[in-house]
């Protein structure tokens, strides 16, 4: 790892100022992605700004929404009785990320900012139609994700919290890579007042996306059978040592049916 200057500011304004003052400054949340990246020398920041003392943790639940501070760990979300009651699928998803030690450190803000094409939270945010709040604005899920490892965040812009509307029903079905535990295909299905939304992670070269054909079919008939005649083309899907694009295309249908069943 290259050396860097380390800062641990105690308020958001100071962190944003540090990150804004230097194009090569980077934020550090749980470090579960960023530290391995630094170890491999894939990134050479001049300054690392630790976000742990900004007071960005905590969960607020209202009858219509769940709002989670950016630095809240996956473990905290997975175990939160309030989240389990309001959006059980979200707690379930958090509990499927990595392993205990990863969940003790990894954060929701870090996961969304990173937008790994195999990450879980992006599917929840997109399917539920949630919003990302930063130090300067609020961004809808549809605008936030801009292709794998790419988001609407500007240089130095910090996620402060993430908000999810409470759906009628929702479920997340994940086919895990048994070694890394990332999603080979993960499907988040949400039944909202305005219809059904289906977000797919792990599969596409473009990162998380909505499966509009499934959404239309499921909005008419919310049952696994509703999508049985829809084939998902394998164009643009990932192909790697873990699974071919064709296999992923097949898994998208299977995991969507499982998610609908689990709703």
């Amino acid at each position, binding site marked *: 790892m*290259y050396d860097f200057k*380390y800062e641990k500011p105690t308020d958001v304004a100071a962190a944003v100022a540090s990150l804004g003052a230097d194009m090569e400054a980077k934020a*550090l949340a749980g470090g579960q992605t960023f530290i391995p990246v630094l170890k491999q020398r894939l990134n050479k920041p001049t300054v690392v700004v630790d976000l742990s003392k900004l007071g960005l943790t905590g969960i607020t639940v209202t009858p219509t929404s769940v709002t989670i501070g950016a630095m809240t760990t996956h473990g905290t979300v997975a175990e939160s009785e309030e989240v389990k009651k309001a959006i059980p699928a979200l707690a379930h998803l958090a509990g499927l990320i990595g392993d*205990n030690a990863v969940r*003790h450190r990894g954060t929701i803000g870090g996961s969304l900012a990173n937008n790994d094409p195999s990450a879980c939270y992006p599917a929840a945010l997109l399917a539920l139609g949630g919003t990302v709040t930063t130090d300067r604005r609020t961004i809808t899920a549809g605008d936030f994700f801009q292709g794998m490892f790419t988001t609407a965040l500007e240089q130095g812009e910090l996620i402060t919290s993430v908000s999810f509307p409470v759906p009628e029903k929702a479920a997340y079905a994940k086919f895990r890579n048994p070694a890394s*535990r990332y999603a080979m295909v993960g499907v988040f299905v949400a039944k909202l007042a305005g219809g059904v939304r289906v977000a797919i992670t792990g599969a596409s070269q473009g990162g998380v996306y909505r499966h509009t054909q499934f959404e239309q079919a499921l909005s008419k008939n919310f049952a696994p059978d509703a999508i049985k005649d829809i084939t998902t083309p394998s164009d643009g899907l990932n192909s790697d040592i873990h699974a071919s694009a064709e296999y992923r295309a097949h898994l998208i249908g299977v995991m969507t049916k499982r998610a609908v069943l689990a709703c």
Partner: protein
Amino acid sequence: MPSVTLTVNGKSHTVDIEARTLLVELLREKLSLTGTHVGCDTSQCGACVVHVDGVSVKSCAMLALQAEGTDVLTIEGLAAADGTLHPMQEAFREHHALQCGFCTPGMVMSAIDMVMAHPEGMTEEDIRHNLEGNLCRCTGYHNIVKAIAAAWPVMHGKELVAAE
């Protein structure tokens, strides 16, 4: 050079380090606590698991500076001063839960964390799920699972009745 102050196995330390120093490097290279191992570059093997403020973390994926002011427990801090093993270490020995021993420090630290986090009881399946972050190339895991189930009643002072 930055410095970090933290408690390791009950003893306070202040050490000058480069900012890029990992917690595992601080433990192994600065404090000579070589029980904590490094088995991978991908945060997957769990050989480096220690407790920071009472919960398991991968010390290869944390900067030493992030541990400022925390209480760290490593495998060296488990046995009593007279050498009496921690119930989890004793159970690993009793149930032959190690062969080469490379994964063992991380296994034991993860095992203690999961038992403490589940006072309501654990099924064999729960134990296996909670071991997802720890890889063992020797044992095939069966005896590790048995050892954890055997340590649970000793650590909680009651019988292990698997919760539903």
